[in-house]
Structures are given as C-alpha cells and as structure tokens.
C-alpha cells in the first residue's frame, strides 16, 4: 500500500515537474491562485464587483473568439444569446418563479435551438452572409421585446433575482465573485481544450481555406454549426450569470455596442488564442467599469471611442494582440519557437 502510494506520488511529482517547467503554465497557475486570494485582501466592494462582471465578460469574449478566431465566422450580433440568457432568467423568474440556477440549463437549451435556426441557412452558403446578417439578429430580438411590452416591460428592463438571496450584501458579492471565477475557469478550460483538440484544428482549416478542407472530406457546415452552438451556449451562460448579478435584464444587452465589446477584448488580447480573449476581457472590463468610472470618471459616451480607436490601430499594426505577445515572449524563455510571426506574417 505504502509502495503504491509512493510510486503514485513520485509519478505525480515527476509529471508536475515537467508540466510546471514551462513558464507560461506557471504564470497561469500564479494568476489563478492569485485570483482565488483576491477577496481576502479586503478590496473595495465596487472593484470586487467590477472584477466579477469582468470574469463573466471573459466567458463572453472567449466564446466570440471560438467562433471568429478559430472558425472564421465573426459574429457581430453575439449579444443575441447573451441577452437571451439574461432575459430568459428574468422571464422564468417573473412568470414562473423559477430560481436563476434552474434557468441556466433552460437558457442553454433555447440557445442551442436558436443557433440551429440561425446557423442552418447562413452557414450552409459560402461567403460573408453570416457576419453580414448577424448584425440584424439582436435588433429583431429588441423589436420582439418591445412588441411584448406588457410581459417584458420594454425599455425599463426586467428585475432579476440574485443567486444567493440568503446572504448579506458583502457576503453575496464575495460569493458571486467565487461563482463567476469558477464558471470562468471551467468554461475557459473547456473552450481552450476544444480549440486545441482535433476539432479545433478542423475549425482552423475551415478558417484558412474552406474549399481545401471540403476536399479533404470535412463536412464544413457541420463543424461551423458545432462551433456556433458551443460559442452561443457559452455566451448564453455568460448572460444567465450576468443578469442575476446586476439584478436587471435590460435592452442594452441586445445593443450593437454591446455586441462589439467581445470583439474589442479579443482583438486586444489576441485573436485565435482563447486565453488572450479572457485576459483582454478581464483587463479592459475592469478598466472600463472601475478605473474609468470611479478612479478617473469619464462620461459613458466616451468609453466606446476610447476603446474602439486603439482597436483599429491594433488591427492595422499589431494583429497578434497584446496578451498573446506577452505569452509568446514568456514561452520563448523556455526555448519554444514563437508562432506569432509565422501565423500572422501574411
């Protein structure tokens, strides 16, 4: 028994050693450990809430990256499923009295159905049809919500219950922080694993050349549809987490401005990386919600301008993104070759 235990321990130790010897993994571990210790340093409650919302935004951004960066279908109406999650949770509570925990799986199911309905006509054809029409979907959702004003309260938004009604405000903020962090960790790992699996390779082959991957016997519509469904499900999850934390499902979650935020975060962090999208979202969203609101107050109208102009410059000059650049630099320390120049040379 003891011998077995020892061998298991030594194997674990050995594998841990080889696993941790790469600096970027060590960095990831440090960041995750640090993020679990954040509430213990008695932060400002507004900052903690900003980081909580930023973690949820990170799920949203990573799901955009999975569809756009890997499968080459930029979705400019990604807020559709986010808003669907938010409104689904609020409506289920207001009509049936269901708790937001039960609403999450229901929302995900609806998001799957909606993805199939949207994806089938637009992903089947080659060309930019999906990106073009994706801008229209959230507007349709907005119109439908305005049409049923009696149920949805139109412009005023729907109130939403919290996840932890039995805790005090401060405890609730900390609990929400850990919940958002856990969801971000789990969904980030799932998306990263999907993106780096065989399926992720197939997505990239579709991005690079649809015709060539079709001639290799890949059913491109099927894989595009899978990417759309996974991406929309995680966006919907982010929406279902977001509404109970801000206690409101508002029409703002369907706006084009909101659809563009994941694009900003992902391009800032690095397209086609997942971790770039997550870090970009956490950094920029904290900047947006805390630093530009509390530390240096800037009028809300200016935020989009402040974030959009650097994105144009990023796309033109630095296509690889900031977080990705840093991670590649760290990877270089351990002797691995950089992929930045090779994949974005042309």
């Amino acid at each position: 028994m003891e011998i077995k235990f020892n061998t298991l321990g030594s194997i674990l130790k050995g594998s841990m050693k080889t696993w941790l010897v790469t600096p970027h993994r060590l960095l990831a571990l440090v960041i995750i450990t640090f993020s679990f210790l954040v509430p213990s340093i008695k932060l400002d409650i507004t900052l903690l809430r900003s980081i909580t919302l930023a973690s949820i935004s990170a799920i949203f951004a990573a799901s955009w990256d999975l569809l756009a960066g890997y499968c080459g279908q930029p979705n400019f109406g990604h807020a559709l499923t986010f808003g669907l999650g938010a409104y689904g949770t609020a409506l289920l509570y207001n009509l049936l009295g269901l708790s937001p925990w039960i609403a999450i799986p229901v929302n995900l199911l609806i998001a799957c159905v909606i993805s199939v309905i949207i994806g089938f006509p637009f992903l089947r054809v080659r060309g930019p049809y999906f990106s073009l029409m994706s801008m229209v979907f959230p507007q349709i959702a907005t119109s439908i919500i305005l049409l049923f004003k009696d149920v949805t309260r139109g412009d005023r938004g729907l109130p939403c219950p919290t996840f932890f009604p039995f805790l005090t405000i401060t405890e609730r903020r900390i609990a929400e922080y850990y919940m958002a962090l856990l969801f971000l960790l789990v969904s980030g790992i799932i998306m990263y694993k999907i993106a780096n699996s065989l399926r992720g390779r197939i997505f990239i082959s579709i991005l690079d050349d649809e015709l060539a991957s079709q001639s290799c016997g890949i059913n491109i519509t099927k894989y595009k549809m899978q990417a759309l469904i996974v991406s929309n499900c995680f966006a919907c999850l982010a929406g279902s987490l977001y509404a109970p934390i801000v206690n409101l499902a508002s029409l703002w979650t369907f706006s084009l401005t909101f659809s563009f935020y994941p694009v900003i975060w992902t391009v800032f962090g690095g397209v086609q990386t997942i971790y770039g999208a997550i870090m970009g979202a956490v950094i920029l969203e904290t900047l947006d919600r805390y630093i530009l609101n509390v530390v240096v107050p800037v009028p809300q109208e200016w935020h989009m301008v402040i974030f959009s102009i650097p994105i144009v410059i990023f796309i033109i000059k630095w296509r690889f993104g900031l977080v990705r650049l840093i991670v590649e630099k760290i990877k270089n320390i351990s002797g691995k070759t950089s992929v930045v120049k090779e994949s974005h040379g042309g």
Partner: protein
Amino acid sequence: MLIESVLIQGLISGVTYALLACGFTLVYGVTRILNLAHGTFYMLGAYVFYVLGFGYVGLHPAAALIVAPLIVGLIGVVCYILCLRPIIDDYFGIMVVTVALALIFQQLTLIAFGPQLIPVASIISGSLVIGRTGVTYSRILSLLISITVFFGLWFFTIKSKTGTALRALSQDREITMLMGINVKKLYVFTIFLSTLFAALAGILIISSVTRQLTPTIWLAPLSLAFSIVVLGGLGSIKGSFFGGIILGYVENIVVSIMPGGGYLVDLVAMIMVMAILLIRPAGIFGKYVERV
C-alpha cells in the same frame, strides 16, 4: 389602409432603401470590402444635411442636399485611405475595423448632438393627391432622385469607360491591373460613390419619411439594406434595386396589416432572406461563382 397607398408608399420607400443597399453592394462587388459601416454614412449624411441646411450654416436645403453627400463621400474616402487600405486583403480585419468605425462615428455624433430627437423639416412642403391617398412632394422628390441615380449608375457602368473598368475590376483584380487600369484610383472612386449614395439615401429618408434624427437611426435601415443585398444577390446592383422594391412593399404591407407591425418588419425580412437563401444560395440575381 388603402391598396393604392400601400402601392405608392411601398414603391417610394423601396427605391430609397435600394439606393442605400446599392452603395453597399457596389463596394462589395468591386472591391470585396464588406463595409459594415455603410449605415453610419447614412446617419452622417443626415446630420451633415441638418447642420448645413437647418442648423448652423444656413444653406438652402436644396444646396445642402447636393453638398452634404459630397462631404460625406470625402469622409468615406479618408476613412478608406487611413484604415482600410493597409488591410485590403484581410477580410476579418476589414469587418472589425468597419464596425469599429461605425461605433466611433455613432458615439462622436452622440457626444456632439446629444441623444435627444432632433426634428427635421422636409425639403419642399405640400402634397399631391392621387386617387384617395395623399403623397407629399418630398416623397415624390426622393423617388425621382433615387430613380435618376439608379439610371445614372446603370448608364455609367454600361456605357462609360470608367464603368467598364469597374465591371472588369469586379471580375478580376489582377487582370484589370495588367490591362493598365489604375486600380487604386478606382477603389477610391468606388468608395466615394458608395458613401455618397448612402448619404443621399439618409437625407432622402430623414427629410421625407422619419423626420427626426438620433445617433442610432442608422441601425434599422442598415438591417433592411443587408436583407435587400442578400435577397437580391451580393454584388449585384440590379438585384439590390429589385430587392429594395420587394422589401419596401413587404415593409408597408406588414406595417399596415399586422398589429404592432412596425416591430415585425425586421423579422419578416429575415424570414424572407432565410427562405431565399435555402432555395437560391446566391440570392435572386446573384451568380454563384466557385472561387478557388
């Protein structure tokens, strides 16, 4: 809800939407730029027209109708040279940059003019009575201008030398370069024309139909224009003309028949687009070319 009213208003709004859509499809057909910021030039056109004609400068509205699209065309060319020319072959970058530009312009307009509705007077007052329905002169004016522009564009692409070059460019860029045509200049010219059409459509719709300005007015017409473009065939000017008329009628019929129809126009247009894409993947007038 009279039949002749639906017939006349549907034609008028359809042709004006088609003017907006044809600029978009022209740019896509010739330069392969998917200009998602097209709607912003519609909004900018309306605001520049308001500033020139009613607000601060005090030009005659008819003069503003001519000057404003030219100004917006120049803005479009500047945007193209600064932001789009360096990444002309990168379709992902172009989409992101154009949406970013759209939001930057929207926010700048919001900062400059505020979120409140600004009422806009029509260019000419009075109305004409046809049968039992009255049609305002400004709507007739917008119909005439749109049809003139369409026939001008058609004549230009068929008969003139530059138009022939444009058609060549839409078929193959490299071969056009080999024929000794200045492709760079043609790109700038196409962008100028397209933004000019968008601005003109904006002015016509704002001054004759909606009569009010907000920084987000461009979203609804833009989504209709996208539906028109996909319905008629991406890159086909004829397609966007007929697609525009079809959707103009659909809009008017839906608004007049269904309760709460104003909210359902987008949905009905989207269902039509989905149905057309399932039957004809390249739209009504598009050619499905397998590009290798």
